[in-house]
């Protein structure tokens, strides 16, 4: 039994296609740097989400092997219980054989999710004990030449976002990539020096940790700091969401993250988003105080849409540069 970091997929938006098995069975998955497991719904699952998503049928895959090891992945807005198996996973033209993955038997709270499952790109220590994450397997089998992957997340368009595996196309960012050492190879975690708004330090006063996480949409920090920032920008709780007046957004302050000697500004247009009903909602969330004793922030899609991000497993470092 393996319990896992709580996640919230309420705001997840970026999904890509993979296939599992022979013949291939197609799935929409989140390529998620904040976890390290691959799971998809299965024909053994009779929960509601499994009737609204693609399910994997091991019986029709000639390359499937059963492990049977139980898996329990709990999220902030859902949970997946299942078991482990092995099969061939195809990602684009990459063929990843004998890949461990979890097949769900039960899923809770994911019926409206715009994805079938999750493909984790975190470090092996984050994965189900004894399993090899997809990227490690691709590397081990020499399927990819460079131990690096990268994300470009579009801001407005439905299409145009990509994940690159095995190399980096530098045409997706402006200027030079700024390399930052991974402080702890578990999450994609780096040390952040300071956070300032209007020149005033807001949290991270003595340095803190930041997790780059494509599986989190928001900017997440310690609740007390997020509460202070919400107060500063005049965000009010409306229908259980923090909203600001849309006419006020342009005058809101920019949040500046100082990392490894470089500043990464986050303008209000990035951390305030307009809902389909025209409300202007804050994408700041609290709750990271129970990740670890030291102050930690999660830089989710809100940040990663502005900054092209490269994840270098070979050198345990992250590269950031303004996205085009």
């Amino acid at each position, binding site marked *: 039994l393996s319990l896992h970091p709580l996640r919230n997929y309420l705001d997840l938006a970026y999904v890509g296609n993979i296939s599992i098995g022979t013949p291939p069975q197609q799935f929409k998955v989140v390529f998620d740097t904040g976890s390290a497991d691959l799971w998809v719904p299965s024909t053994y699952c009779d929960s509601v989400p499994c009737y609204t998503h693609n399910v994997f049928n091991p019986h029709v895959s000639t390359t499937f092997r059963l492990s049977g090891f139980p898996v329990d992945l709990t999220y902030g807005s859902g949970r997946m219980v299942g078991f482990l198996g092995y099969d061939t996973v195809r990602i684009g*033209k990459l063929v990843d054989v004998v890949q461990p993955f979890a097949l769900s038997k039960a899923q809770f709270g994911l019926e409206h999710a715009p994805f079938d499952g999750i493909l984790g790109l975190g470090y092996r*220590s984050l994965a189900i004990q004894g399993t090899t994450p997809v990227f490690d397997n691709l590397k081990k089998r020499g399927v990819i030449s460079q131990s690096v992957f990268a994300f470009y997340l579009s801001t407005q368009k439905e299409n145009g976002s990509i994940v690159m595996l095995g190399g980096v196309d530098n045409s997706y960012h402006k200027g030079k990539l700024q390399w930052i050492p991974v402080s702890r190879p578990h999450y994609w975690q780096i040390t952040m020096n300071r956070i300032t708004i209007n020149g005033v330090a807001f949290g991270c006063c003595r340095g803190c940790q930041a997790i780059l996480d494509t599986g989190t949409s928001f900017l997440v920090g310690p609740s007390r700091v997020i509460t202070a920032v919400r107060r500063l920008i005049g965000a009010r709780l409306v229908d259980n969401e923090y909203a600001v007046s849309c006419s006020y957004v342009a005058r809101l302050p920019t949040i500046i993250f100082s990392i490894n000697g470089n500043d990464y500004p986050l303008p209000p247009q990035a951390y305030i988003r307009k809902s389909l009903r025209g409300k202007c909602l804050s994408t700041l969330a609290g709750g990271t105080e129970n990740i670890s004793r030291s102050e930690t922030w999660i830089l989710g899609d809100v940040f990663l849409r502005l900054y092209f991000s490269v994840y270098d497993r070979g050198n345990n470092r992250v590269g950031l540069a303004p996205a085009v």
Partner: protein
Amino acid sequence: CLVIIPLTKMKTMRETLREKNLLTNFLLRNNDDRSQNVAHDPK
């Protein structure tokens, strides 16, 4: 050797729940702050 996988920006679960008028209930059960947790790693 570079493999590029297109990602599609989907309608989020939040928007879908909002359209179905299920969001307020959902958020009452998982208040936004707590639900964004990436909790301590049990390992």
